[in-house]
């Protein structure tokens, strides 16, 4: 317990470095792309267009009467964040070997700041969500207030996954090849393009193992007036996220002392 408190207090002591690294990642991301901030909108937007054609027109996914573009965009925004942040955080340690072998600071700062830097894109893409809601005449409800709040479990889940990958990546250099595969599998295993109602009832126990699904579903429900927030599902997802976060932190704490020797 004291070790956990010490670990966290070191993190707090270095909070300024944490924010500087987030700021660096955001700044560099927008400096290096020609499209800058618009990239944050274009990515989920184009996916939405492609999905609307495949799942809306060809496969005809049941959206409960909601136009497919807004149905998918509501989950594509948090999904795009996850898809951007996990590989970034997962590879962050091996890409900052210079820092790790030359300076001391709590190592968790590196994957955590990488994971957090993605929320700027999320914010920009959320503006586009509002524009789409107006375009498709989706009424604004009080439930929409939950949209920014849901970012909390989403960032926590993303950070946990990113930290696990990051720590494993230092130890096993072929982990980085598994990240793209993991992301691809997650896209299909999560209710991004399809509703959770499409999942057979007998598989519903899987939600305990897949907190991202519950979080994404809540994101969607906060936008669509036809849905109410699935509080029960969300509660399970948040609980599972917290457990994963603790597991990831403990694993990270146990391995971080050897990072400088292995990297």
């Amino acid at each position: 317990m004291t070790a956990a408190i010490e670990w966290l207090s070191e993190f707090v002591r270095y909070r300024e470095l944490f924010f500087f690294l987030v700021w660096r990642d955001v700044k560099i991301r927008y400096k290096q792309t020609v499209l800058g901030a618009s990239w944050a909108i274009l990515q989920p937007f184009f996916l939405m267009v492609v999905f609307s054609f495949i799942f809306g027109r060809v496969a005809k996914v049941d959206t409960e009467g909601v136009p497919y573009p807004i149905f998918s965009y509501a989950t594509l925004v948090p999904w795009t964040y996850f898809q951007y942040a996990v590989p970034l955080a997962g590879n962050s340690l091996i890409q900052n070997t210079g820092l790790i072998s030359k300076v001391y600071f709590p190592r968790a700062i590196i994957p955590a700041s990488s994971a957090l830097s993605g929320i700027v894109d999320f914010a920009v893409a959320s503006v586009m969500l509002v524009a789409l809601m107006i375009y498709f005449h989706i009424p604004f409800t009080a439930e929409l207030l939950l949209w920014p709040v849901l970012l909390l479990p989403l960032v926590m889940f993303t950070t946990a996954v990113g930290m696990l990958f990051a720590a494993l990546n230092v130890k096993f250099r072929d982990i980085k090849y598994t990240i793209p595969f993991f992301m691809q599998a997650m896209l299909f295993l999560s209710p991004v393009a399809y509703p959770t109602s499409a999942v057979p009832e007998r598989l519903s126990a899987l939600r305990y193992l897949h907190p991202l699904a519950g979080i994404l579903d809540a994101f969607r429900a906060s936008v669509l007036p036809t849905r109410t927030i699935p509080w029960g599902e969300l509660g399970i997802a948040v609980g599972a996220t917290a457990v994963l976060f603790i597991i990831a932190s403990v694993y990270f704490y146990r391995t971080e002392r050897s990072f400088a020797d292995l990297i």
Partner: protein
Amino acid sequence: MGEAIHVEHLTKRYRLGSLRHETMLREVITGMFRKRERREEQTILAVNDLNFKVDQGEVVGLIGRNGAGKSTTLKLLSKITYPTSGKIHVKGRVASLIEVGTGFHDELTGRENIYLNGSILGMRKKEIDQRIDQIIHFAGVEKFIDTPIKRFSSGMRLRLGFAVAAHMDPDVLFVDEVLAVGDADFQKKCLTAMDELRSGGRTVIFVSHNMAAIENLCPRTIWIDGGKLRADGPTQQVIASYLATFSDAQRSGYDLEKVANRGGNGMMRFTRVDFLDERGEPTSVFRSGEPIRVRFHYKVNERMKNPDIALAIHSDLGTRITTVSTWQAGYYIPELEPGVGSIDLVIDTLVLQPNRYYLSMWISAVEEWFDVLDHCIAIDVEESDTGTSLGRGLHPKWGLVYTPSRWQLGPPVAASR
């Protein structure tokens, strides 16, 4: 005055993994299904039972040959890496300077990099705000401070990096060899800045190969050899005895049988290395551009199939310059029976500039290490009248490697209008 640093029985053991390759998950997985073969883990003791105390306000030099454990000690003190056993107590706010400009990013401006680098070194934003003008002035980059540093020259980057470091305000400072780079003017400026740090009552541990700088800055010096404390006392005495060990270092032959700090499973060992000149006579002189023959004597303890013998040359700062091996040369050593023998490596042209170099050598086979000797021999390469007979020679400052080459002027081209 109180104690600032207290090191007790500090020991760091590294697995010899770094000389091998990175671990792959698939190897671990396939390894689970394979029959477990117990292989003796190969380790080296980078730091071996080190004990010392430093009082508050003391400035202590840390010297030793490459691979002696200086840098590891500094990294242990800075908490970058953790000891295998032993304890370290450091009182107060610590800053360590192992590299100048750590974390600099090309796309960010000079000003942005000051904030980033400063916070990496443990400075608070408020402190950087207060000192930013001084930092910019110290670095002498006022004009370019708002341009991305990818447009900076390497000298400007270095100055900016040191400027940030010189404005840290720690109680305890660890500095590693950062003065080895940069021109003489800048080095002087850095030494002055270090001197100011000292007068500010800080505790400093300073690692360097620059004996003049150590003598200038540190009243007390610790000499580490083979990971152990060899001497600790007044700087002049320690440096004198340290340098004395170099005079007999330059020899034509090296007995390697008694070297304790080595890796490998011992199935085959190096016993001796001799250096021979063109005529096959023993020599202790290494000259740029001249041939040299290296004779490795070995002892085979267990019968083995085609071992690979390799030699690596490192700069005095530890950079590996080149590696030659029988495997790479396609030279096939047949099966060896237990016994002794020798093999010659013939270097037609020693392409090293005059400087000090370190040699590492090992004998291995696929997935197996028989003998590993890291930085076991130091050689001083002397200037020679290479290439021309004009006495122009070579100079350490021109780089590490001398390139045998010719110049050829193209045919005249009429000036275009």
